């Protein structure tokens, strides 16, 4: 079942074409990986879904979610989708969390807005979420500030914030790039588990094909604003059809040592 569909998405900024017709379909309970080098348009695709493109960007095509086209929605309705039905996790938890607000405040603000929860209800749900992403001592963590947590913990908190309003779609833009490998392993396991448990449709943007191989079900490879190859993980990574995918796989340190 397709939850979110991106069709013929084109984005140009200042006359320069960044995306040149991207088609992707995200399914519930599946992780869709988006790979490619920097500058290939991976991040822009994620941002376009949420209408977070830089000022002056021109967009065409469609992003369909539950019978609506997100690109055509008025701002007020789009705001109901953002953080509610579609949530995002950014690369660097050190900058995506507000340094001067407590974790609890950042976890409950959008819940109260989107779900209309009361203070106590929101707090109870926030503590539950912190437990779900395995933050030790969730009740105490609620009142702490981001700098009191390690990088991996901060990214877990960012994931908890994204999940707070029970979204249908989660966009994760390089969620583990800023983390150590041992911590990355934990965050990847968490993402995969949440995707299976909650039936989330996840768009995982990453340049790391190892990460891709570990969690993604479907893999799409982007280059110069176009999806050049798309298919099940096993096929794309083991029997790539497009020469660009092959060159990406060959440039890995592991391939060289072979």
């Amino acid at each position, binding site marked *: 079942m397709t939850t979110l569909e991106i069709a013929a998405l084109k984005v140009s900024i200042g006359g320069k074409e960044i995306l040149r017709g991207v088609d992707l379909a995200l399914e519930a309970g599946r992780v869709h990986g988006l790979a490619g080098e920097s500058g290939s348009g991976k991040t822009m695709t994620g941002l376009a879904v949420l209408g977070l493109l830089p000022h002056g960007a021109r967009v065409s095509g469609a992003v369909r979610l539950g019978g609506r086209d997100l690109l055509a929605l008025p701002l007020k309705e789009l705001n109901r989708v953002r953080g509610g039905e579609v949530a995002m996790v950014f690369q660097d938890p050190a900058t995506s969390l507000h340094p001067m607000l407590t974790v609890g405040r950042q976890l409950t603000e959008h819940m109260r807005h989107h779900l209309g929860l009361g203070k106590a209800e929101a707090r109870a749900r926030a503590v539950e979420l912190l437990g779900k992403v395995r933050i030790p001592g969730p009740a105490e963590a609620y009142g702490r500030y981001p700098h009191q947590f390690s990088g991996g913990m901060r990214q877990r908190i960012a994931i908890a914030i994204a999940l707070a309003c029970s979204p249908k779609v989660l966009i994760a833009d390089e969620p583990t790039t800023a983390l150590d*490998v041992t911590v990355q*392993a934990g965050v990847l396991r968490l993402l995969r588990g949440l995707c299976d448990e909650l039936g989330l449709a996840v768009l995982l943007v990453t340049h790391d094909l190892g990460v891709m191989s*570990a969690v993604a079900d479907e893999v799409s490879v982007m280059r110069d604003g176009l999806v050049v190859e798309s298919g099940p993980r096993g096929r794309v990574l*083991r029997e790539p059809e497009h020469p660009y995918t092959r060159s990406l796989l060959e440039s890995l340190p592991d391939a060289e040592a072979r």
Partner: protein
Amino acid sequence: MTLPTTLLAIDDLVVEHRSPGRPAVRGVAGASLSVSPGEVVGLVGESGCGKSTLARAVCGLNPITAGSIAFDGQPVTPLGLRRRKLTGIQMVFQDPYASLNPRRRVGDQIADGLRTSGDTATSPADLLERVGLPRDFAGRHPHEFSGGQRQRIAIARALAARPRLLIGDEPISALDASAQSQVARLMRDLAVDSGAGLLFISHDLSVVRLIADRIAVMYLGRIVEVGDTAEVWASPRHPYTQALLRAVPRPDGMGTLPEELPGDVPDPADPPGGCRFSPRCPFVMDVCREKEPEFGPVACWLHEPR
């Protein structure tokens, strides 16, 4: 004294961070390591394990609490405010957006290094060419360059002083994935070509494996395993090294989730007794909780030398 065959010898180094009202934190707690001329040593470990503190101590940027660092047989002294005798060690820092002076032309910044080494024959443009940039970039300012280009300029500036030991403190972690292995390989080639040693610090095992001759693995202020890169990669002996390598996801298309290392890195202000890895180690024995394994190359009671 005999002629030193090792360029840099770190022996039982201890570096403490002091802050008022708190106990001193041992960033580096008894680490020993050596680098020979023309050798590339990769230092890996999780964030907060003391890699950067060790590198800064080698450069004289952090005062030493105990132990010794010898460069060419001479002890490394803390860096003075204005004068530095020790130009044989040069460092490339993590963030090229912060390490280059934004108000000076890159050619002038490289020329500073040339002046230190008394080199009048080489021009900044020659060095730019060596790091793979066009010669006419010397007249530009840092903001005109991308992250990868800036890091190349930082490398050119470090090389200008003719170092015999080059230190890279996470020099690639601020760069794009596509630029990372290029810059790492460039550093290796330039250091080895000039006969200098390279101490390359990174948390990215796959890159270190690509360029290092030897790998040293650090955990909570101590070096737990040192060995030949291929050997360590193929058959890691310390349980921590094993866990670290198992956590690297492999692009085989099989969908295997990388293994998670249970627990968190303990607080370096209050390290566990005995072996520092014992609370997280899957093979923990009684002796591990009581005595710290103070031997090498694998600091683990399972691999005690007899």
